[in-house]
């Protein structure tokens, strides 16, 4: 028979040497995660460098002033502006700016901000505006009340009528102040009801200003817009946050987007050198501003990462300055050939006279000036090299900040297919065709790095600004000196999501 035993002992003895091997699948899953983690570690480092480089590039490309104006002022409206009311009100602000001094402009900006936040307020409050508890003598509060009533007018036809009848009465009391207003109103007096409401607002606000001019506290109050804005932002913060989250969630559904774009492109070389002939290595080069245009399609892999490709037509060009072009009459010159240029054939009717165009760097020319030349087409001519490509980019876009103004880092590469190439000498605006460069590869590549700003106009539509740096690889054979071509393009366009 069996002994009585403490239950703990029973379990301890049984479990003491308990070994069981798990399914191999467990190890495979662990291994997969370990490998994935290794990969994941590599990418963020790369993105950090890319981010730093792109930021530097942005500063270099756009320049300090432009950067300050845009990057800092653009986000501000994105925090405040929310509804379709924004448009007429902005117009109103612009009209105002002409006629009033700065302190008043400040006040109007405030009131427009307030108006936007109060759209959802109850209509009853507006009806009770005269006895509204916040009224006091604070001008900004009364402005918000005034806008309340106007907003309510937009919502309900009945109240609109009552406001409209009340409003002219108030405006009459301040005819002097309204003269300018009337002028601007007439200019903007379209048939749309929105404009009418904007006029109502103007009347109210103008009315308010006239009250304020007799009030000593006016200046102080209008000069503290920050405090007022903050106050209202807090009231609406949660709602705004909710709205944004909803927007983001909906955007996730739209994985595909198409974006036509256009960009001014600046072509240049990182080192001293020449793609044309060794004698031009030390000549100054200047970039020509050309255009690139095309369309790209992108697919969002997840919230942050999207992959895109497309097709672009790129024209590039640069000038080699300080050259001398010489027309030699009826004789072959030893200097007539440039290393990497296939000259125009002598059989062409244009060139049948036997004239040979020789091109030298001006320094080279000085050395050889003892020789006899029949004519010179001038000193300080420049050689213009123009190239055009079909570009097929493949890029990854990583979203750093997903606000109304999205910030992205972009990296990738492009394949280029040469479609056209020519060299001209330029003197006083006159271009003479020299020939084609013989050292340009039919297919070349570039490494791309850039920085993107997306301004979301709506869920489906956004505006892009993307300064890109493209370092060209394998574009030229047989370059001389340290010729490292690149180009910078500031791509602008708009994107549709679907």
């Amino acid at each position, binding site marked *: 028979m069996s002994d009585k035993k403490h239950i703990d002992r*029973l*379990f*301890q003895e*049984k479990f003491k040497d308990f070994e*069981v091997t798990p399914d191999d699948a467990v190890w495979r899953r662990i291994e997969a995660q*370990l*490998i994935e983690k290794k990969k994941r570690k590599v990418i963020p480092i790369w993105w950090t460098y890319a981010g730093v480089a792109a930021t530097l590039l942005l500063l270099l490309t756009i320049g300090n002033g432009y950067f300050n104006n845009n990057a800092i002022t653009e986000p501000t409206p994105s925090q405040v502006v929310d509804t379709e009311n924004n448009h007429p009100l902005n117009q109103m602000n612009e009209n105002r700016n002409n006629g009033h001094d700065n302190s008043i402009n400040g006040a109007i900006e405030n009131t427009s901000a307030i108006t936007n936040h109060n759209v959802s307020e109850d209509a009853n409050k507006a009806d009770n505006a005269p006895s509204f508890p916040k009224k006091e003598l604070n001008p900004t509060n009364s402005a918000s009340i005034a806008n309340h009533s106007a907003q309510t007018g937009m919502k309900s036809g009945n109240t609109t009528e009552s406001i409209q009848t009340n409003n002219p009465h108030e405006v009459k009391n301040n005819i002097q102040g309204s003269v300018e207003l009337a002028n601007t109103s007439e200019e903007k007096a379209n048939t749309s009801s929105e404009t009418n409401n904007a006029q109502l607002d103007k009347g109210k606000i103008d009315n308010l200003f006239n009250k304020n001019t007799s009030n000593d506290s006016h200046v102080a109050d209008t000069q503290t817009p920050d405090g007022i804005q903050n106050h209202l932002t807090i009231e609406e913060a949660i709602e705004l946050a909710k709205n944004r989250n909803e927007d983001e969630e909906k955007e996730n559904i739209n994985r595909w987007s198409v974006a036509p774009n256009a960009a001014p492109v600046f072509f240049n070389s990182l080192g001293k050198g020449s793609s044309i002939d060794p004698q031009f290595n030390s000549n100054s080069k200047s970039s020509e501003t050309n255009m690139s245009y095309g369309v790209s399609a992108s697919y969002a892999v997840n919230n942050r990462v999207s992959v895109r490709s497309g097709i672009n037509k790129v024209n590039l060009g640069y000038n080699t300055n300080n050259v001398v072009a010489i027309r030699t009459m009826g004789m072959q010159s030893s200097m007539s050939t440039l290393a990497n240029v296939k000259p125009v054939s002598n059989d062409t009717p244009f060139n049948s006279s036997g004239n040979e165009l020789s091109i030298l760097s001006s320094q080279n020319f000085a050395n050889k000036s003892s020789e006899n030349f029949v004519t010179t087409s001038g000193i300080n001519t420049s050689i213009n090299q123009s190239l055009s490509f079909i570009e097929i980019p493949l890029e990854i876009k990583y979203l750093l900040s997903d606000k109304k103004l999205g910030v992205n880092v972009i990296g990738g590469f492009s394949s280029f297919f040469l479609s056209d190439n020519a060299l001209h000498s330029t003197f006083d605006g006159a271009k003479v065709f020299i020939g084609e460069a013989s050292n340009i590869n039919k297919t070349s590549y570039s490494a791309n790095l850039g920085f993107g700003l997306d301004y979301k106009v709506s869920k489906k539509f956004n505006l892009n600004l993307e300064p890109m740096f493209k370092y060209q690889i394998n574009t030229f054979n047989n370059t001389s000196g340290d010729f490292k071509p690149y180009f910078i393009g500031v791509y602008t366009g708009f994107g549709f999501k679907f």
Partner: protein
Amino acid sequence: MSLNQLIEKCKVNDTKAQGDLYKLYAGKLFPMCLKYSRNYAEAEDNLQDAFLTIFNKIKQYKNTGSFEGWIKRIVINTALQRYRSEKVLNIVHEDISEDVEIDIDDEDISLKYLLQIIQELPDRYRLVFNLYVLDGYSHKDISEMLDITVGTSKSNLARARQILKQTIENYRTQEHLQSL
């Protein structure tokens, strides 16, 4: 290769060494996962999470104390972590007096059956029973690990023993009846 060499290689994320370490310990650690988990699938998940933690934190292992003890603690923590995040530990305190009679006949009961009835215990009873009886932690340790009082730990253990005993006895009665 010695264990220390293997550990050093794992510290530099050598994939082969990680595989060898897994092979060396999976057989010992998987039973631990089984007894702390509700079922086989959950045990596999725990083992997977525990090994990922081991490979992540192996750099912090300083060759002081036994390596096996170190990785066993990780397995237990992984199992406990699951229930912490699921918040199943907040069972209302049950005041059960110390066990009176928990001796049991030592007949041949299969390990598989014992494991099954442990897994069927309510989560907290299972954790306390495993920690105290099978892994040798004190009630004070357990109270800290599970964020409960020592008294709760003791009463949970007593309740776990009673349930286990009752289950085994019922099982025997049934077998006995069937054999008639």
